[in-house]
């Protein structure tokens, strides 16, 4: 199968997945108890007022009709407005995606730096002190909940030093990078333990492989040996894992966003679910679903580029 065919096939396979995501998100929000009309009208509103609001929102129509109307608009790029009618969903999703995207990218960089450093140190001398630290870190990092790590970083770093804001999303780009440092570190401290273990195993395997021994025996320099022979090959098995981590970063940052008061997709999604704001929930779920599918697709393509056997399987 050619590379182009492979990508085209994966893109076609993504369409039913995205449709399924849209149906599930649409149905789930409507099947759980809770009434957006009551949220809008307030707890003191009479039943008559709520019925009137419900009708004006089109919520009195059959579910299938509501879904088809939504799908028709979405295909034309119209995701509607939020529950209060104050902002278009696309604008809300766009703003949230900037925050979550920035957080995810910085967190991914931190995760890779921490993981690679620790894994390299651990793999260079198995059972050495660095290896022990890496093991403790792997277990400890997985055991510590990210909201607790966030609180600790705020209490122990942000508050005493004043170097980082306690939370919030400033308007200035430089200040934003500063504001995203601790949240990204929090995420990296939660995610890197997974990658450390995987990388350490791969590195150990590659360090002991014949081609590394051969390279060493013909006098390949230490630095070239490490980066061109060892790290490059050891990273291959971690590509799918990095894709999973990116998927988590896109969809699972809600706790960290909440702890640092970052207006990202996760925090917006929780607020929208709580308010039964169907348009915003669907907009975000569809966006996240599409992005995650694309990330997995990208990982598959990358893997197929470096290892053509993946295309055949």
């Amino acid at each position: 199968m050619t590379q182009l065919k492979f990508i085209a096939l994966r893109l076609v396979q993504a369409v039913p997945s995205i449709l399924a995501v849209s149906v599930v998100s649409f149905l789930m929000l409507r099947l759980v108890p809770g009434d957006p009309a009551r949220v809008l009208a307030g707890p003191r509103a009479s039943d008559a007022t709520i019925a009137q609001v419900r009708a004006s929102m089109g919520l009195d129509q059959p579910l299938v009709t509501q879904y088809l109307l939504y799908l028709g608009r979405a295909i034309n790029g119209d995701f509607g407005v939020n529950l209060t009618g104050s902002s278009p969903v696309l604008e809300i999703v766009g703003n949230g995606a900037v925050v979550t995207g920035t957080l995810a990218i910085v967190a991914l960089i931190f995760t890779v730096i921490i993981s690679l450093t620790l894994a390299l140190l651990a793999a260079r001398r198995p059972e050495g002190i660095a290896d022990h630290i890496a093991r403790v870190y792997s277990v400890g990092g997985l055991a510590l909940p990210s909201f607790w790590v966030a609180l600790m970083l705020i209490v122990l770093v942000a508050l005493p030093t004043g170097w980082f804001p306690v939370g919030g999303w400033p308007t200035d780009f430089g200040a934003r990078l500063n504001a995203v440092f601790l949240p990204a570190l929090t995420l990296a401290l939660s995610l890197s333990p997974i990658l450390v273990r995987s990388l350490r195993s791969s590195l150990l395997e590659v360090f002991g492989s014949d081609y590394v021994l051969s390279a060493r025996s013909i006098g390949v320099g230490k630095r070239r040996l490490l980066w061109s022979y060892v790290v490059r090959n050891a990273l291959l098995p971690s590509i799918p894992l990095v894709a999973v981590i990116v998927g988590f970063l896109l969809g699972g940052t809600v706790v960290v966003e909440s702890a640092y008061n970052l207006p990202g997709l996760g925090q917006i999604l929780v607020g929208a679910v709580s308010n039964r704001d169907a348009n915003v929930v669907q907009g975000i779920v569809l966006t996240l679903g599409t992005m995650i599918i694309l990330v997995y697709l990208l990982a598959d393509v990358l893997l197929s580029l470096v290892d053509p056997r993946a295309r055949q399987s």
Partner: protein
Amino acid sequence: MRSNPQRRRILGALGLTLSATLLAGCASGGTGSTSGSGGDSATSPHAGTITWARPAASNGWEGDKCVDTSIPLNPAVYDTLLRIEVPDGDGLAPGLAEEWEWDDESLSYIFTLRDNAMFSNGDPVTADDVVFSVDQWLSGEFSSSYYATVDHAEAVDDTTVHIVMKQVDTFLPALLTWCTSPIYPADFAGETSEAFFEQPIGAGPYAVESWEDPMGTSERITLVPNEHYYGWDGEPPLDTIVVETISDPNQRALEFQAGNVDILAAVDSATATQMADDQLLAVKPNQIQSLLVNQAVPGLDNPDIRQAISLALDRDALADTVNDGSIAAVGALPVNVPGEIAPSSPNSYDPEEAKALVDGSGVSDLTFTYLYDASDYSADILAQAVQQQLGEVGITVEFETTDGNTLIARESSGDYELSSAGASAISPTIFDPISWIAIQYGWTGSTATTIQDEFLAGTSTTDEAEQQEHALAVQDFITTDNGMIGLLNTAATYAKQTWVDGFVPLQYGTFYFDTLAG
């Protein structure tokens, strides 16, 4: 595995250091004084600016849609004809109307407007603006039902306006303090309603300078003084008020401790432990927390079981358990509201009588599910205490937790057995919470219209003694029928930095901004 004592010592030292650091982190939280909280002096680090953080965004500037979080915010921008008396909240006070009276003959309230009130665009507030505003209230999709007894408003001259009623309704003056009753400039000052509510113009002490992420999870509103406001005595005391939405309670508390936030709303008892005593401000207990009992559920349809539940509850012990300034409920209506009255037979604690009622009821299945909002810290503690107390008379309570919106949705559709409910007044009359409780009581499966009837009768008379009789009738009905069992009157708690002056929150969930300084 190789064993190396030196390595073990190093690892041990690292472990100890890590543990100590983590423990230190856990310990740094509550303080007994303001020191170390970012606010250790009475001088603001950002003089002239007050930042107020709260858990949820506003509902916008439309009076028609003003609920929840907009209730305390909108008075900053819009003034109303009448206000609530400060600081005790014991009655009504002049707002844009200097004087008001009821005219029995013409079935009208007659208001005399201040002659020096102006909108933030510099236009004077006239009777025409009031007439336009009343028309807006009457035609609103969400709130017009509150004004069902209003026929129309008419301007007599620039400063005199009549609100003509269809019938006597003594509730209207209280309703005029609500944020659903703002005074807009006539014809929205030439703007479309959409444009107007994006950049509202009001006669309140402040005007909207910017509104970021409107109604979103990170809404940030910047208010600047309305230089035409009639209430300033010289220069406005503040340059800016910033209203920030921070949904996470820990984040709000940390921002407060860092000195970035000056006023915190909705401080729960867990967060309060992190504040210094001189930073906490509890209003008078005003919100009645009740146990909603679904009378359509087998077992709970038995009046003896409902009475047994009421008798089994030691409300003083519940108040001690919740420990946030709460006081035991003597009836089903809130306290610290003008017109409050205790029921003829106040709530009492008699576990033996409760046990006897349970034993004699003939009800075999005495296990009920208690639905409550798990994100409400006090509700969580209260639920456990109720479970324990009812267990002592043989009633088993199982928990089902949910979020606030689902809770109300399930209660209103009768999808619960026992549930937590709250009701408070947002204006100074006992008929205010009665109007809300009348709706909630319909969720208990009761078909009685007693509360609605008494509300209508009580607000249709100008005789105060008669009004009291109708309020008492509501108390007596609920404490006898026990569809809604009063537990506690809880108090809202705020936190403020020591440099904030003039912050006087009322028990009605609101405060006025013109006295704020810092």
